[in-house]
């Protein structure tokens, strides 16, 4: 490797195919969530949902070098993680539409979206709920002599849950292969990190568990990829957990009930100007990984995947009404 390679980490580390797939996935996240939002508005989806539009780099860059054997745990804002880990948007839409063909056979919905086949152990409706579970997955890998790592996604708000403290401590004392990824989008619902968290940077809390902690620009694909890459390498080498904090922003409200009274229009617009997808795409073009036409093709492919996904979902069958208690226990 040449020491004069000054290209961004991601460009010099991953193959063009990987990078293009990553861009595609970022588009997929964006278009998927827009599609879900519209479907919700049109009354096709009920419940609530938490959109990660604006945070695509964090999810996709974190997962770029994972295989299906690696695991992730996700949170309530989990569509991006799910797609980043390789899920099929058609089955995701089917889940949102409450269909039997959905990843959770219509029982889970947005807040429980999972794809165990690709290593996604699931979104979680409980803030902080996934943290100890991720540590458990890493314990399995270590005890069973597997080389897989677990990435644990959670928000800034979750960092004040007791589960955060207990999980990071256990991961550290047992030197487990897990990477804690805090997606700090400045707010837990309406409550800013400043008002909720007694430390300036959440990554500083890593010191309380003697693990490396780093804060990166979460809208910079390569910065995220680099930080997570090192954390994964450490985990795979048996050196234990790390904490990576991705600074990012959600463009939409917290969920469907948000009046946005806790933040300003200016703040939202400033962050929208830092669109992680546009930025990554420009970088790929600048470094010759792809050209404008290819980028457009990728973006269009995402649109078409999403359209087809919605079609698939709408056309799928709903669970039989008599099957309310199916899947509560293992079938004999």
């Amino acid at each position, binding site marked *: 490797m040449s020491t004069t390679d000054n290209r961004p980490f991601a460009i010099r580390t991953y193959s063009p195919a990987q990078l293009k797939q990553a861009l595609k996935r970022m588009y997929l996240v964006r278009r998927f969530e827009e599609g879900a939002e519209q479907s919700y508005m049109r009354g096709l989806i*009920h*419940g*609530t949902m938490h959109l990660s539009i604006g945070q695509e780099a964090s999810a996709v860059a974190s997962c770029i070098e994972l295989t299906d054997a690696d695991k992730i745990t996700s949170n309530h804002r989990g569509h991006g993680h799910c797609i980043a880990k390789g899920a099929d948007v058609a089955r995701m839409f089917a*889940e949102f539409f*409450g*269909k039997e063909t959905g990843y*959770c056979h*219509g*029982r*889970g*919905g947005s*807040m*429980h979206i999972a794809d165990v086949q690709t290593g996604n152990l699931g979104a*979680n*409706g*409980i*803030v*902080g*709920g996934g943290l100890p579970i991720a540590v458990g997955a890493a314990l399995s890998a270590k005890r069973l002599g597997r080389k897989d790592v677990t990435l644990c996604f959670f928000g800034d*708000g*979750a960092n*004040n*849950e*007791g589960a955060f403290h207990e999980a990071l401590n256990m991961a550290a004392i047992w030197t487990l292969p897990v990477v804690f990824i805090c997606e700090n989008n400045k707010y*837990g*619902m*309406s*409550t800013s990190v400043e*008002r*909720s*968290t007694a430390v300036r940077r959440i990554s500083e809390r890593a010191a309380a568990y003697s693990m490396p902690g780093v804060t990166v620009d979460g809208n910079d694909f390569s910065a995220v990829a680099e930080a997570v890459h090192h954390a994964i390498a450490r985990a795979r080498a048996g050196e234990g957990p790390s904490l990576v904090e991705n600074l990012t922003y959600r463009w939409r409200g917290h969920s469907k*009930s*948000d*009046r946005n*009274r*806790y933040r300003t229009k200016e703040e939202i617009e400033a962050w929208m100007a830092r669109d992680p997808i546009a930025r990554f795409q420009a970088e790929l073009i600048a470094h010759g990984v792809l050209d404008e036409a290819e980028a457009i093709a990728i973006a269009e492919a995402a649109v078409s995947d999403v359209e087809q996904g919605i079609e698939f979902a709408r056309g799928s069958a*709903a*669970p039989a*009404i008599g*099957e*309310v*208690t199916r899947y*509560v226990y293992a079938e004999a």
Partner: protein
Amino acid sequence: MDVTAQETSTRTLSYSEAIREAMALAMEADPTVILMGEDIGVYGGAFQVTLDLVDRFGPDRVMDTPISELGGAGVAVGAALTGLKPIFEFQFSDFATLAMEQIVNQAAKLRYMLGGEASVPVVFRMPAGSGTGAAAQHSQSLEAWFGHVPGLKVIQPSTPEDAKGMLLAALADPDPVLVFEHKLLYKMKGEVPAGYYTTPIGKAAVRRAGSDLTIVAASIMVHRALEAAEQLAGEGVSAEVIDLRSIRPIDHETIVASVRKTGRLLIVYEGVKSYGIGAEISAMVAESDAFDFLDAPILRLGGAEAPIPYNPDLERAAVPQVDTILAAARRLARREV
């Protein structure tokens, strides 16, 4: 209820407006009353129950907590022990699973463990129930758990009037009170007296008199049961509908007296059927002197033996609805059980 002349004016308020009015009244009258919870300030609460109270009372009395349910509940307990009267809102009652330690081991037991030398006047507000498409972790009805815990009081108002009066009673109570509020009720409107009044904890309400069978219903099920009773009346079946209102203490007298009269009992509640509140009501009647008046098995209509599913049709099928109440009442009236 006994209200003075000037206060007898009633207005139509929603259930959440009634709760908000109770909180505002209490805060105006008593500077030790504070509100705590996640996003109850500028956001107004996940269900907009606190709405603008932070503008009226400021962030020192309407405190946004970090997402720390165990610690937050514990802070409320410690504050209650030392001079404040906190109303702690769980954003969803499901999240009380994180705070059972403080609610059950501390709040409920402190007076007892300290031989009467301590008092924990805290109120926990618990938005509960399904019907919003929020699936398994945001739709539970866990009130039966708390009914099982001596030291706690547990109420479940079903109307705006009671939501206000019982919350004010809870605040006047020197012991910890949990108020279960069904999320689908928040927008329900009803007549609410102005001014201060309390609706006693521990008393059920007969919402409709009847002679053929007794339906004891809790929370939102009261309304479904009343609708079913109306239809039953058309079929010549006279159902008495009792609104449980209070889970702990439970109103033994009202329920038993009704069953002694009607001889048939149907219990309707949203929580999982087995080991739910219906079990206690049934058992209480089966060991009471109403036993000899029973003309038929005691029926329970509770939630399915499953987590709440996401799919809206499954979700509806998972808890009692007017049609299933009606079917059960008919079976009971005709003794087809």
